[in-house]
C-alpha cells in the first residue's frame, strides 16, 4: 500500500493529470444537468467549482466518482478511462475520497469504526493496523479523543472532520468535497475550512464545491464557474472571482455577495 506516500508530492500545476473530463454529459429525464463539461485536475492541484444551486456541481463530482453513470463523454482518472463500462467502479471509488454535504457518517459505528471500515473491508488492512492508522488520522483532524464516541454525539463540524478523515485515511489520489460546509452552523465552518487549507498545504489533490468565496480565493489554484451544464469560465481565483470576464459569472458573484 504505497498510497499515502506518493500523494501530494507534485507541485501545484504539475504535469501529471489526475482527472480529466471531456464532453461529459448527464441528464436526469428531460433535465440536462451537465452538457459537455471539460476540465482537468493536476496532481497537487486544488480546483474549486462555483455556480448556482442546481448548476450541476454535485452531479459533476458524483460522475467523477462513478456514483452516477455519464450519458456521454470521457472521464480519465490516473490515465484510465473510467467511463468504460468494463471498469470496476468499486475499485475506482476505492482510490478516490468523496465527502458529502450531510457527512453521511454511519451512526451504528463508532468514530473509529467509521474511519477504519474501508481500510479493513476494501483495502484488506489488518484490524490492529487499521486501528493505528485510523487513530493517527483522527489525531490529524484533531479528534483522537473522540475515537470511541458515536457520530451522533459530535457537533456538525466534528462530524464533518470525521467524514474527511474517513475519506482520507485510505490515501486517495483525489479528494472530492461536495459542499462540505453548507450544512454547518456559521461558527463551525471555520474548523472545517482550516482543515481543508492544511490538506491543501500538504499537497492533497482535491476538487471541491463551495459557496465560501473567501475560502475559494484563498486555497484554489483554479476556480471553475459552472453554469447551464458547462464550465463558463475558469482560471486563477484572482481572474475568475476578482475580475470575471463573463457576464454570467459577474451576475452570479454579485448575487452571492449581496
Amino acid at each position, binding site marked *: 500500500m504505497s498510497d499515502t506516500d506518493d500523494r501530494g508530492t507534485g507541485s501545484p500545476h504539475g504535469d501529471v493529470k489526475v482527472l480529466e473530463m471531456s464532453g461529459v454529459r448527464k441528464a436526469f429525464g428531460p433535465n440536462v444537468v451537465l452538457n459537455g463539461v471539460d476540465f482537468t485536475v493536476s496532481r497537487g492541484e486544488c480546483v474549486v467549482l462555483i455556480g448556482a444551486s442546481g448548476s450541476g456541481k454535485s452531479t459533476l463530482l458524483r460522475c467523477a466518482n462513478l456514483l452516477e453513470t455519464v450519458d456521454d463523454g470521457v472521464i480519465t482518472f490516473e490515465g484510465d478511462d473510467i467511463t468504460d463500462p468494463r471498469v470496476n467502479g468499486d475499485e475506482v471509488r476505492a482510490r478516490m475520497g468523496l465527502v458529502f454535504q450531510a457527512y453521511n457518517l454511519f*451512526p451504528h459505528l463508532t468514530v473509529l469504526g467509521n474511519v477504519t471500515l474501508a481500510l479493513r473491508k476494501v483495502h484488506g488492512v489488518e484490524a490492529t493496523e487499521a486501528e493505528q492508522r485510523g487513530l493517527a488520522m483522527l489525531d490529524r483532524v484533531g479528534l483522537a479523543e473522540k475515537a470511541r464516541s458515536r457520530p451522533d454525539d459530535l457537533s456538525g463540524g466534528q462530524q464533518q472532520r470525521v467524514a474527511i478523515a474517513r*475519506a482520507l485515511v485510505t490515501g486517495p489520489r483525489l479528494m472530492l468535497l461536495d459542499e462540505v460546509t453548507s450544512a454547518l452552523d456559521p461558527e463551525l465552518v471555520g474548523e472545517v475550512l482550516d482543515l481543508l487549507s492544511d490538506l491543501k498545504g500538504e499537497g492533497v489533490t482535491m476538487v471541491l464545491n463551495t459557496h465560501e468565496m473567501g475560502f475559494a480565493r484563498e486555497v484554489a489554484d483554479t476556480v471553475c464557474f459552472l453554469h447551464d451544464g458547462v464550465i463558463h469560465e475558469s482560471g486563477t481565483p484572482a481572474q475568475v472571482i476578482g475580475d470575471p470576464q463573463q457576464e454570467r459569472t459577474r451576475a452570479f458573484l454579485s448575487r452571492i455577495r449581496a
Partner: protein
Amino acid sequence: MRTEVKDWQPSAIQLERESFRRRQAARSTAVAAASTLLVLGVVGGLVVSSPGWERVHETYFDAGKAVDAFPAVLAGLWVNVKIMVISAIAIVMLSLTIAVMRTTRGPIAFPLRLLGTVYVDVFRGLPLLLVIFLLGFGGPALDLSGLPRSALFWGCASLVLSYSAYVAEVFRAGIESVHQSQRLAGRALGLTYAQTLRHVVLPQAWRRVLPALMNDLVSLQKDSGLIAVLGTVIDAIRAAQIETAKDFNYTPYVVAGFLFICLTVPMARLTDWYARKQGFHGAGSLM
C-alpha cells in the same frame, strides 16, 4: 463561575408545586386502584353468581386435576420452547434472505424480486393452521429422501414458512428505512453493493426492527402450540388434551394457558424495555 448543584435550594414556590404534584399522583393512584377493584369485583361477581358457575368451576378450575396434569403440561411446554427457538433462528435466516431479494434493485434482479414477492403473497395469505395441516400431513407423505418424516419437522417447517413471510416484510421495511445517503457513503468508500448491505445497511435496519421482531417472537411462542393439531408432537396443548381426555375435565387447558402466559409476559416486558431504550437513542438519527 458556575453555581454548584449542591448550592441550589428549591424556592418556596417550587416546594409548593412538588407537594401539589405528589398529592395529584396519590389521588390518581387511588382512583385507578378503586376502579380496577370495582370492575374486577363486578365481572367476578357476575361469573360466580351465574347459574352454571358450579359446573364451570369443577370442569375448568379443579385444583386436584391441575396438580395432576401440571408435570405433563410443563414437559409439553418445554417442547414448545424448543420449537420456538429452532423456528425463530430459521425464520430470521429465511426472512432476511427474502427481504434482501425483494430490496435488490436493477433489472437483473427481477426474477429474485418476483420470487420474493410471490413467496410473501402466498404465505401471508394462507392461514397458519392450513399450512400446518397441508405440510404436517402432506410433507411426510412426499417421502422426500434426506428430509425427516416426523410431524415435528414438518410442523416447524410450516411455522418457519408462514412466519418468514411476515418477518421478511418487517426486515424489508427496516432496510428501506435506512437512508439512501448511507448506501452512497458506503459505495463512495469503495465498498461493493454486498459489503455496503452487510456492513452499513443491515446493521442499522436490524436495530430499527428489533422491537417489532420481538413482538413476532411472542406471537411465535403461542403459535408453536398449533402443531398440537398434528397429534404426534406432545407439546403443552397436546399434553393438556391427553390429560383432559382421561375424565373430560378441562382444567389441564387452563394450566396450559397459564404456563403460556408465564412464558410470554417476560418476553413482552423485554420487548417494551428494548423499544423504550431504542426510542431514547433515536432510531434514525443522522438524517
